[in-house]
């Protein structure tokens, strides 16, 4: 790890390069996010629910595009060879990819989640939905980390897509499971966000698993002796 960060200048350049590659599409997605948040802010049940579905879709699309475009396609389009000819190790490259993907996903993810929460607290929408919105958003973040890890460790479009499909299916199950939990659904129409022990435990588990997936990815990357 010490060696990795001794090449921090190159890691920074690789992250900046990835930013330049996706900045236009990211701006388009964020513009779409603003429209969706506006829709949710109309505060009718129909528009809020429609906006929520669109927002989930947008978060998944941003993550999928990020992992596929910045990691899998780099091998598929054979730009990885070009990158590895630069003064970087495989570990530097992996750290840069991890950093770039996290920044380029976490920033829009945070903006979108913050936007949704802002709309909820500043409109007649029940603030009781906040734990549900946060938990679902964290689940989407965890899913993203899972297929990012798959992409980084395998560079396989097939495996990455398979993990995307599985996590998307699990998301549906997760939402249904949450809505059936009394600790969650009984507080949905509360005037304030109700962070009870169940929702806090789920939040901690989601964040903990996300960190675990990222750390495991970093450790496995560091063990690689061959690249390309």
């Amino acid at each position, binding site marked *: 790890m010490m060696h990795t960060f001794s090449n921090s200048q190159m890691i920074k350049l690789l992250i900046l390069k990835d930013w330049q590659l996706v900045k236009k599409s990211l701006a388009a997605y964020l513009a779409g996010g603003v429209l969706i948040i506006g829709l949710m802010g109309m505060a009718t049940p129909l528009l809020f629910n429609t906006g929520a579905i669109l927002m989930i879709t947008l978060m998944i699309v941003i993550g999928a595009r990020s992992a596929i475009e910045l990691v899998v396609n780099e091998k598929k389009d*054979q730009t990885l*060879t070009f990158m590895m000819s630069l*003064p970087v190790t495989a570990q530097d490259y992996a750290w840069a990819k991890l950093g770039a993907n996290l920044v380029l996903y976490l920033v829009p993810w945070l903006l979108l989640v913050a936007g949704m929460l802002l709309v909820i607290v500043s409109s007649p929408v029940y603030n009781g939905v906040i734990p549900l919105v946060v938990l679902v958003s964290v689940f989407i973040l965890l899913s993203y980390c899972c297929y990012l890890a798959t992409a980084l460790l395998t560079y396989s479009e097939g495996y990455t897509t398979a993990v995307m499909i599985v996590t998307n299916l699990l998301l549906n199950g997760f939402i249904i499971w949450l809505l059936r939990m009394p600790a969650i659904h009984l507080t949905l129409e509360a005037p304030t966000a109700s962070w009870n022990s169940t929702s806090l435990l789920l939040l901690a588990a989601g964040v903990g698993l996300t960190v675990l997936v990222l750390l495991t990815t970093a450790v496995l990357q560091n063990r690689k002796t061959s690249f390309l």
Partner: protein
Amino acid sequence: MQQFAFEMRDISIRYPHFAMENISLSLPKGQVMGLVGVNGAGKSTTIRMLMGLVKPDAGQINVLGYQLPAQQVQAKYDIGFASDDMRLYKSQTLQWHMDFIRSVYPQFDQAYAKELLKRFELIGEQKIKGLSHGQRVKACLLLVLARRPKLLVLDEPTTGLDPVARDEVISELAEILRDDERSVLFSSHNTHDIEKLSDQIAFLDRGKLLALQDKETYLSSWSRFRCQLAANASSGNTSADAAMPVPGAVSIKRHGQLAEVITDQNSAGFAAQLALAGFQVLEQHRMSLEEIFVANVKRSR
């Protein structure tokens, strides 16, 4: 003391269906080495080890004074690498790539890059997706050459090019190599390119180094003789390789009373050996690298 651009000593690496054992290969500074071999001979594996991308199971690799793969970051500042499977970002322009490379390599020579743009007839503002394969190869070479690397490693750069584009790339490369005092490792299964550019030849086949020699010595050590067999010699009517009664003969093919003899120990002494064995030399031909390559590979199998 001999200064080497790179030195590989007793390198071994094993994959499930391929292995390289005890490979030792070195390139003196300022020389151009052609690495020849059929597909799957181990050329790309050798180059990947030299770039620090693959760690050998045993042996030592030193490139420009740096131990690899441990010091690959420092080494790669002075190595320029281009390969046939290297692509640039399709959605970006060549100028974007030049700016990116300049941000990585402080020694990036902008004036030289502009000169290469003109020489390669490339347009900086053109997106990579609009370039032909030949133009993409030239773009990759431009990005590598403008860094003025001390060691240039080219892995099959002309593969997939049509004959005209290949000739253009090789001619430009030959021109550039004459101008600069840099060491070059050039891998190809196209022996014409290797013959044109190299000072040294390294032959790889099935993970084994068959030969490593300077080009002129190597080419002159091989020769083909067309011979008439003496009347008392056995006169089988076959084109199959005969037994080799002549020391130094790599192959002897007989067609009735005529025979074609190939040697890798060409000298006046070899012609005398032929005469002693009952072969009257009618003609002697210098062999092309391609012919030597085929004969060498056949002998090793």
